[in-house]
């Protein structure tokens, strides 16, 4: 595929239709604009989610990536049945999201002034998630070195959990970032990564879906609506399919 990141391509694809609309409008005067006799359509219509690319990090610096991988692996630890956040690809998911429109708050209202209001008025932060992660990870690194003698990824599991607990409670005072805000953002993103379609980088091999018994990107349950209290037996399927779609099993 080309060099644009998946997220950039998504952004472009989402803009393409807007472009078509405005071009159509400019043909004003002669032909009747929008006086279509049929509903608009063209071959290969639609903007499917682009694949994210296999290279390691689009956004994170190596130190940041190590910290995030360690964080996600404590937020969702591995167990014998299901991978943890790291092997599930949650850090990769977050990396791609931060590198894309989500990271820079694309589409949100970013006009100033930014005035801190009540909790009910919602976030009033000029920093999007990408900037927030950058600042918070730097602050967390500084904090861990000071409190525990090393970067987060190098600490024992017990120490990691203690620090995460302090972020969650607000006891950890970071310099240059709010620990609690960062914790909530990270937790939300980790859960997204664990349960979103694998095409976004996390939920590798649909491990999150398998864990809970969620069948994935299916669209027809008519034969099952009336089968009350019965386990749904079919394996999950993602946007890129499942093993049974292939004639050659690897």
């Amino acid at each position, binding site marked *: 595929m080309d060099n644009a990141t998946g997220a950039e391509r998504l952004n472009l694809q989402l803009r393409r239709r807007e472009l078509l609309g405005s071009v159509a409008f400019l043909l004003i005067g002669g032909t009747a604009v929008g006086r279509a*006799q*049929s509903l608009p*359509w063209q071959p290969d*219509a639609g903007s499917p989610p682009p694949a994210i690319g296999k290279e390691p990090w689009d956004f994170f610096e190596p130190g940041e990536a190590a910290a995030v991988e360690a964080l996600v692996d404590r937020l969702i630890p591995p167990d014998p049945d299901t991978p943890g956040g790291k092997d599930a690809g949650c850090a990769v998911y977050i990396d791609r999201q931060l590198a894309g429109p989500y990271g820079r708050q694309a589409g949100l209202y970013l006009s100033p002034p930014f005035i801190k209001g009540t909790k009910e008025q919602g976030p009033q932060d000029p920093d999007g998630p990408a900037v927030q992660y950058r600042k918070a990870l730097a602050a967390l690194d500084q904090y861990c070195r000071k409190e525990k003698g090393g970067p987060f990824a190098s600490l024992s599991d017990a120490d990691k959990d203690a620090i995460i607990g302090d972020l969650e409670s607000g006891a950890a005072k970071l310099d240059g970032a709010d620990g609690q805000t960062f914790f909530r953002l990270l937790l939300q993103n980790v859960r997204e990564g664990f349960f979103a379609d694998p095409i976004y980088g996390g939920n590798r091999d649909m491990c999150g879906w398998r864990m809970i018994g969620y069948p994935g990107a299916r669209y027809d349950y008519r034969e099952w609506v009336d089968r009350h209290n019965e386990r749904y037996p*079919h394996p999950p399927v993602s946007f*890129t399919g*499942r093993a049974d*779609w*292939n004639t*050659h099993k690897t």
Partner: protein
Amino acid sequence: MSDKRARRIAGLAVVTLAVAFGAAAIGWAQTNEPGTSLDPQNFGQIQRGQYLTLAGDCASCHTVPGSGQAFAGGRSIETPFGVVVGANITPDRETGIGGWSDAQFLTALREGRGHKGELLYPAMPYPYYTKVTVSDALAIRAYLNTVKPVRNAVVSNKLPFPFDVREGMAGWNALYFRSGEFKPNATKSTEWNRGAYLVEGLGHCGACHTPKTALGGDDQAHAFQGYALQGWFAPNITNDSQRGLGGWSVDDIVAYLKNGHNATSAATGIMAEEISLSSSRMTDADLKAIATYLKDLPGQTTSPPAPVSPSSPAMTAGGAIYADECQACHGGDGKGVPYLFPSLAASPNVRSADPTSLIRVLLEGARSVATAGEPTSPGMPSFAWKLSDDQAAAVLTYIRNAWGSSAPAVETRQVSEERASMARSGR
């Protein structure tokens, strides 16, 4: 370039050279039947002519879609040999046919010779229109005389050498053109004969549905048994039980032609345009006649082929893909939703010998036609980004061989080739 096309070019080049001198020897019939003159006061003739241009779908080649300039020409028509551009047949004197005599018009329509004596290309389907009666042809002329004259100079011949040498058509005509008005078959009903007149003449259905020889002429031995053109496969429309209209009643055919949809099938692609411009505007009686005629074309399949084994890798993979991706519209039993999502189980198109249309619809999606009778025009999504060639071949093999159907498997390489060919045509 495919082998077939190369052979065609070579063949035509030979024929061109061989018969270039013979061109002059082949004359053309001039018809001048008494009692069939044009009368501009005869509104009935004009009305009839207008209807006949719908039946003949003249607009599909002579009107650029969305231009609002009816019959002004300029539409490119893809032929296996290159592009021909539809002529301006408005009454404009300089750039249209306003300056032609009626006799010249009849000759062009029914004999394939232009008003300067030049041979026309059968993209203008004179081999079919030769069957049109003089009276009908004059009615068409009468109607065309009343449309708005449009100044639009069209150069029709955009073919590459050697096909742009019109004299070469003489040899082709010698092989494939049989001049002559439609002769009713006394052993058949009036309705059948009307259907035959429409199908074999103005309707020129064979132009798309009859396979062609290497030189681009109709393979009459396999008339109406299907033909691949412009990236589609126009299916078998004989009464064949496997791959044709054997499972459709006359009413099913009428509903399809009139509304673009019947209980099991929906029109898309080139046929969608045909229905939109032509058959949806024809009378029920004429559509019934066409259906009667088609149902009388004998099928070819004596016994259906053995289905691909349900336990084969393609069928098991295809079945999994079908359950996950196709079932929500086409149903677990393949029967779809009547008039909305086509039935795959009952579809002769699905069982076509040539899977070109199936592959295309799967990869790029499709929008079915909207008509006054069936306005919904549901669309099928594009699967090109979601399925590999192997997976696409598997699910297509599955739908051709599930639910009691049977047809040859679709090979991975057929999907790859078509994907590549679609990319080359800019789709």
